[in-house]
């Protein structure tokens, strides 16, 4: 019984995109459209990599060519691999001072508020533009504690042994077609090592920007949180709006060692012409805790299921996520929890919304292995469908291979609740204020997990977009 005005308002929640501006930036080098073995070799040569990395890339390229496009999820047939530029180098090197970053690129990140956030509340920042990280800086006090926060290419040069020990052990090129592609052409991303017992109090952040059309961005992030250490890492991503698609296929690998704690927060706000196919996985050892805080607000097609492999006894995995799907968007997101150790616990809270014909799916996996005695999982997925044109599916997979497991799954799908709306309006809030309040309340479990500055940003984003539609 909602009025047409309200329908329009809630449809516009996912309406405007304020990061869609373009930057004029001529790359120093690009590999041209399409992908061949020569281009893979070219990327490795430009980066002056060791032989083993070139071999790794070439092997991954073979497996990319061999693997079929997955058909169990959203339709990916629109991605034309021959139309994509796989590597584009925007600047000479990664700088430690914003003043040394080429001016137009620096301006881009200024407009995105990155240097400002860095000064206010971050312990370190990386900024990637197209294929390479153009800026990277860490607080000196962290460096003094032995924390390594570098772009992944630099880490390969400066910490070759540490790098080789962990690289591609959690996500191998054989994992899926897009992990294979990423392995073949990877460039940029973050490398973090937190030594034993070190607590990184303020978050580290990386920001990923795709600037040109029909671009492919393939960063690779590797994080090692050593025994008893802790880390909060934040990533953000945006792109200009184009009519043709770009591809973002990242790989994120995380190790959380015995008693360690890692939190990985994503605010994915790609423009709607980005196809986002990301593999994110963490190995969680004894008594360690991995948290994924996963916000999916943008992109045209998004397939992302952050995973925890709870390997050690009493390891803990947590995923809390939101997904918004507006017009022309298909969010296929969720989480995976693989319980291997005894008494491991996991919790997934997923909040999804669809409007203006958008499609939002929850797809999840809970797996309890033979030896995961006493493991417990809790899944809660709530979906709000804001109009009659929009849809949602919940696709959980639960596999339990022992007799001492607890798995709980709760799911709800609702419209904006009529009784809630009536209640708020009966106190004098007009319909759009009331809807806004209900929507903000719905995503509050996610918003409250964000650093304050991001929560404010998220709330303002939604409020602005709703206000903008009040006529």
């Amino acid at each position, binding site marked *: 019984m909602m009025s047409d005005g309200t329908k329009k308002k809630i449809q516009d929640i996912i309406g405007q995109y304020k990061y869609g501006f373009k930057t004029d930036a001529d790359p120093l080098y690009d590999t041209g459209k399409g992908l061949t073995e020569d281009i893979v070799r070219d990327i490795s040569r430009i980066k002056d990599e060791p032989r083993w990395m070139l071999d790794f890339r070439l092997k991954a390229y073979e497996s990319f060519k061999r693997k079929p496009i997955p058909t169990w999820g959203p339709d990916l047939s629109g991605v034309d691999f021959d139309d994509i530029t796989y590597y584009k180098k925007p600047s000479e090197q990664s700088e430690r001072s914003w003043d040394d970053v080429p001016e137009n690129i620096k301006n881009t990140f200024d407009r995105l508020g990155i240097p400002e956030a860095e000064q206010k509340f971050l312990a370190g920042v990386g900024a990637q533009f197209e294929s390479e990280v153009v800026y990277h800086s860490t607080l000196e006090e962290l460096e003094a504690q032995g924390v390594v926060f570098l772009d992944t290419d630099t880490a390969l040069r400066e910490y070759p042994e540490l790098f080789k020990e962990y690289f591609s052990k959690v996500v191998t090129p054989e994992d899926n077609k897009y992990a294979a592609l990423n392995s073949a052409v990877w460039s940029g991303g973050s490398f973090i090592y937190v030594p034993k017992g070190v607590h990184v109090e303020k978050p580290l952040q990386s920001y990923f920007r795709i600037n040109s059309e029909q671009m492919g961005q393939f960063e690779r992030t590797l994080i090692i949180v050593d025994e008893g250490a802790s880390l909060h890492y934040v990533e953000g991503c945006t792109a200009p709006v184009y009519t043709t698609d770009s591809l973002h296929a990242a790989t994120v690998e995380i190790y959380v060692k015995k008693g360690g704690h890692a939190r990985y927060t994503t605010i994915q706000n790609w423009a709607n012409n980005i196809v986002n196919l990301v593999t994110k996985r963490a190995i969680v050892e004894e008594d360690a805790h991995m948290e994924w805080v996963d916000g999916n607000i943008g992109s045209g097609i998004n397939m992302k299921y952050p995973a925890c492999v709870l390997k050690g006894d009493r390891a803990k995995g947590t995923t809390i996520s939101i997904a918004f799907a507006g017009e022309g968007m298909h969010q296929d997101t969720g989480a995976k929890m693989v319980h291997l150790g005894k008494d491991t616990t996991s919790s997934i809270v997923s909040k999804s919304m669809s409007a203006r014909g958008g499609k939002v799916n929850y797809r999840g996996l809970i797996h309890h292995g033979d030896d995961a005695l006493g493991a417990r999982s809790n899944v809660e997925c709530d979906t709000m*469908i804001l109009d009659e044109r929009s849809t949602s599916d919940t696709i959980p997979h639960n596999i339990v291979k022992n007799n001492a497991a607890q798995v709980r799954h709760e799911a*709800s799908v609702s419209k904006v*609740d009529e009784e809630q709306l*009536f209640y*708020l309006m*009966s*106190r*004098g809030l007009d319909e759009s204020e009331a809807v806004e309040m209900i929507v*903000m*309340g719905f995503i509050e479990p996610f918003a409250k997990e964000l650093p304050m500055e991001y929560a404010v940003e998220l709330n303002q984003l939604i409020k602005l977009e709703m206000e903008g539609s009040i006529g």
Partner: protein
Amino acid sequence: MATLKIEDLHAQAEGHEILKGVNLTIEGGESHAIMGPNGTGKSTLASVIMGHPRYEITKGRITLDGEDVQKMSTDERARAGLFLAMQSPAEVPGVTNSDFIKAAMNARREEDDPISLFKFIKQYDKAVADLRMREDLPHRYLNDGFSGGEKKRNEILQMRMLKPSIVILDEIDSGLDIDALKVVGENVTSMKDDSLGMLLITHYQRILDYISADHVHIMMQGRIVKSGDRELMQKVDSHGYDWIKEELGIEDERVIPEDEARTALGECAVKESFNE
């Protein structure tokens, strides 16, 4: 002084007529009580006055100070001075009590003149203390996980903060123990003055020990069948409703079938499944 006037009001839900000609006038400063057995349309009347989308007015009219209430949206009615303390208030997870009440207060003010935070907190803390509610109330989500009694007290708290001119208390006593009933009674009574008009809806007489009513109406078959003063209330208290039915020749007083009567509003409000 506000006047709420209900004339020959007929209303239906899903094609089923529930209100069948209600007449009632409430002036500022007056307290009215509507009593009656379950399922006779009392709560429906409250919901219709506030504009619940489930109900449709088919005949008659409601005016507030001469203005046609039917032409106002629910929020306009609230801002015009109507307040309904609900029988089953909705739970709104993720929205804190204080944010909500502040927004509701600001909805009554000019956009560039929101209530000062200091003033708000002072008023709010006073109301929380007077209603003997938990100190963490401002940070709790609106009615989420509240006991029945907490929800009812939260309604009275909002009523105090929003300062309406006509209040309707729909079974405010249900789910309250005797101590809570006293607290609610005190707080409502303290709001009474020459200008506040009040309509109490109840099927037990006991709330009237704590909040006095000068005018008492009996509702059956979707309309007011008998009106009187405190004497009528006392007679109902000692003799029940059967004598009225007999006097008026009413066999079945209900307009809502028994199994639906108690879930008419709100009970399953939070996670209703989507099936269109």
